[in-house]
């Protein structure tokens, strides 16, 4: 056997063994990278073995080449395995280092809050919208004629209490109800009509826990060839079912409003005593939600409709009252203080 060939094989074996030991001894991927260069690079002992190639015969060359490739492959396998091991270990260490206190609060993504009154307005208009009601807004400052006369409340009508109305001119008032928007809507449209008319109303009243001189109202109006009192009852019942949720009882009883005939008042059972009477409902068991009725023939005539041919219903919803009943708010004054601690509770 050629001495040189034998010597090369010995050196190869030594380099291979040393390389494997070096790989096994590495403690970091950076160290491993050095070992890789040292034992598998062009100047490594393993590669240097091939310097004798020129002096070997063909068969030996073939054998030595195969041995070098085998050694390189073995070393590379060892390197790769070690790389995986060390990589995983280092990743674990990095993760440990990156550990956070998961109990710390998260980053704030603050949304604004809707005012509870306007939240309810939106909700109620949404319910009405799904029933096909068009939304129309009349002006806050109204003609006396629209606010009263055309609503079957002529000058000397007992229902027109001058004390309660803010006047801004001889024939101009701050609307005391959203009902004048009915007149505007009916004058601009022909039946069939389904309209919801929201807005602020004003009454010259002393303010307390349940009264305000400015309050929100949503007027509902349906006029068609065949609108009946039972439709009014059904519509209001559905609004309450969706807004308050299933299971809250409402009742419908006769009342009086000048612009409706028959007229009705809608009551909802007290959320505290469920209709048996308690302190919070004044012992009545029921709380008034708002007035309604079949549009008075005089009102239909006033806008040029024929009460023989069409009929309609109208209702007034007080979203502040609805909100109070829904959430158990007892003081109306909270609605106008705009205290964030209050506003933030309902979104």
């Amino acid at each position, binding site marked *: 056997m050629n001495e040189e060939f034998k010597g090369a094989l010995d050196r190869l074996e030594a380099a291979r063994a040393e390389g494997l030991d070096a790989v096994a001894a590495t403690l970091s991927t950076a160290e491993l990278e050095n070992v890789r260069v040292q034992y598998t690079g062009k100047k490594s002992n393993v590669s240097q073995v091939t310097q004798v190639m020129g002096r070997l015969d063909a068969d030996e060359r073939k054998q030595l080449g195969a041995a070098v490739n085998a050694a390189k492959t073995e070393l590379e396998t060892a390197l790769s395995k070690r790389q995986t091991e060390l990589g995983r270990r280092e990743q674990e260490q990095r993760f440990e280092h990156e550990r956070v206190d998961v109990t710390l*609060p998260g980053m*704030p993504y*603050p*949304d*604004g*809050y*809707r*005012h509870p009154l*306007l939240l309810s307005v939106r909700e109620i208009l949404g319910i009405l919208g799904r*029933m*096909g*009601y068009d*939304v129309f*807004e009349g*002006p*806050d*400052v*109204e*003609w006396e004629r629209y606010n009263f006369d055309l609503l079957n409340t002529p*000058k000397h009508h*007992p*229902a027109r209490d001058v*004390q309660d109305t*803010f*006047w*801004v001119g001889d024939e*101009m008032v701050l609307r005391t109800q959203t009902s004048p928007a009915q007149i505007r809507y009916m004058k601009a449209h022909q039946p*069939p009509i389904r309209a919801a008319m929201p807005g*602020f109303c004003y009454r*010259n009243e*002393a303010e307390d826990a349940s009264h305000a001189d*400015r309050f929100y109202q949503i007027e509902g109006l349906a006029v*068609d060839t*065949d609108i*009946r*009192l*039972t439709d009014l*009852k*059904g*519509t209001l019942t*559905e609004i309450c079912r969706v807004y308050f949720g299933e299971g809250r009882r409402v*009742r419908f*009883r*006769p*009342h*009086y409003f*000048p612009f409706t*005939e*028959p*007229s009705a008042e809608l009551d909802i059972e007290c959320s505290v005593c469920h209709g048996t009477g308690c302190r919070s409902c004044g*012992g009545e068991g029921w709380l008034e939600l708002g007035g309604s009725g*079949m549009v008075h*023939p005089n009102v239909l005539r006033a806008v040029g409709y024929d009460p023989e041919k069409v*009929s309609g219903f109208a209702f007034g919803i007080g979203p502040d009252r609805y909100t109070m009943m829904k959430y158990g708010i007892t003081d109306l004054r909270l609605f*106008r203080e*705009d*205290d*964030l*601690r209050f*506003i933030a509770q309902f979104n």
Partner: protein
Amino acid sequence: MRVPLEWLSDFVDFELSTDELAERLTMTGLNVEGIERPSVEWRDVIIGQVVELEPHPHSRNPLNVAQVDIGHQRITIVTGAPNIRVGDKVPVVLVGGRLPHGPDGNAVTIEAKPMAGITSHGMLGSERELGLSDEHSGIYILPPDAPVGSPLVSVMGGDVLDLETVSNRPDTLSIVGIARETAAITQQQVVMPDVTAINGSVQWIDQPSIELQIDVPELCPRFSAMRIEGVAAVPSPTWLASRLEAAGQRPINLLVDLTNYVMLEYGQPMHAFDADRLQSNRIVVRLARSGETVRTLDGVIRSLPADAVVVADGERAVSVAGIIGGEESEITDQTTTLLLEAATWDAPNIRFTAKALGVRTEASSRFEKGQQPETTVPAIFRFLQLLAQITDRPLRVSRLSDCVAREPEDRTVTMPLRDLDRLVGVPIDADTAAEQLSLLGFGVVIEDTAISAVVPYWRRVDIEQSADLVEEVARLVGFDSLPATLPRRTMRPPVTDPRRRWEEIIRERLLAGGANEITTHSLTSYAAMARLFLPGRRSASPQEMPWETIIPNPEGVPARRAVIEPVKLLNPATIEREILRMTLLPSVLDVVSRNLKNSDERLVFFEIDRTFFHRHDDLPYERETLAIALSGERHMRHWSEPQPGPYTFFDMKGLLEALLHSTQLQNWESISTAHPSLHPGRSASLRVGDREFAIFGQVHPEVAHSFELDTFPVMVAEVDLDALIGAAGAPRLFRELPRYPAAYRDLAVVVSRDLPAARLQQVVRREGGDVLESARIFDVYEGPQVPPDQKSIAVEMALRSANTTLTQEDVETVMLRIVGAIEHELGGTIRD
């Protein structure tokens, strides 16, 4: 209206419990607001009589020691009450019994307590302690005929319903009226007393009671009067006094009490004059004379408004008709002859006069709703009947004087049967409907396709047409028994009004941006609005302030035919709420200020509401307006950023940009502007073209001080939404995504410190032309690296062609153009 059930049962035999009756009345239209059950409260109250009374021998306090007869025994009661006398009948609670309302309003049990050495074996009750009223100055003295030793409830204290009455049903302001309703819902008949049957010693004198002259027949449809001699203003018997008490009327004396009693029972207000104090027997009903005054029963001298109707004894006005009597002819202890008046008055006239006088009485509140003439004479005879029954004196009664100046007209209303089905929604047959109407007192005839009904006189006020009869039938059938249906037609879905749609988009954007929605009052004062001016700039009269400098887009107001003047209330309730606001800023700043007391983090608020501008001869211009305010720490204090710092001008501008983006408004610009409320260097106006639609900036510290906002800078914006929404709203159309890559170039430009960044951007955009996709300012620097009075602005540009990939050469050509323009037009230099 308070309805003692024991009184009601005189007229109708209802066999219902109190709760059942209350429920039935409520559900048929007479809402019962409360039920009183004194019989439960008064379980331990008995009737006693004071038989001896002497001052307490040992007490320094003014105590009395009373011996009280309670029927089977006498007990000692120590009392501090100043008003009792020997012989008085009084309510007594014995030791161990329950006093309905103690000092704190709750029931207390009476204990045997020695008072200054003498043990009291019971307690005497005041009106407050019995729950009758708030009166607590003395013991409640019972009528002399109260039976000693009996429970108090044997003479008073049946259940009382408190009814809500509605303005079109004056007939329900009487026991008889409630009895009619009760009879109808229980299918009974009302039993009316025969007032012609007068028992007692009555001698009729064949002379007219008065000589009557009605000058204003249109205002006084009927006037009836009766002269009764031999009367005395003695205390009323217990049954009468207790009924009045239960109905909420304080007993005074028999004569006054009977007028009240008959009014409550029949609904007919009456007035009793002391006939001897009238100057003559001639009664004139006329208009008040200019400057005429009357001293009324409450002792006040009142000047009468024009159109007030008075009852005069010849010359002198002795009562304000239908409202209040005169003091000079009122019943006194000496009265022996009375002139009893029952009349009908014109409702609007009474309404007007009562309002003008500021007087509201039981009488006026009935007359102003409309009383019918049919009740005057029965009421007078009812009075006489009761008086004769109660008094043991012989009465001499003159012939009734009665003048019907205007005959009432009977009314017949026809209800087509189809209206019932059409308006109510359930089939109600003619017989059922007719029966319900006759139970209510209508004279009913069933015709082929209709029911015709003669309206009973007491329903003339509210029954005029078919729909009114429909309601009567429906309410007796019961609204509760009606099915709940929905309108049969399915409507086409409504299209949201564009203004509302934009408003909601803006609202959503602001909420998403962390702003909180508020809603403040639209009534305000000049003084509250004037706080937007620096204290030194406020003129002595706040009306004179230059309001046009405060509001956004002042030119938009005359464009809507309005003026920058507030809408004033003619009858404000307070000076704080005398006008409608022209700006939302003061109340929004007040909200910031109030909330700053609770928290100093993220005080971000917005309000969308109307502002109002006066128009001559038309309704005001109501402008949809948005106000935003930012103050406090710009974030919640958080471990990631423990000291967030205050909001800046650019926080506000960023929020505005976000909402402008959501409205798709193009080509708006922000221009430095002067505003009286804002920091001169930090105030701007937003415009499209030459049209302003918003103002914003940092509130001037002196203005902020007026709102107690001294701790943090405050940013505000006010937006004319009419203008913004008018300019917004290009429909959204899809744009192709870019197909070719963009080239990015940064450019740092040193320019004069005064040069607005927008000017630089404008030049860059112009020169960049179509291929300049964006030019974003990402750095602004002033300091040692640049010369004084200069600043460096760094712009990141994206260049992209829609058709091809730009070559290096293409990009450099554009950049050279941009740089050239910056150097020549703006005198800028490029920093490397």
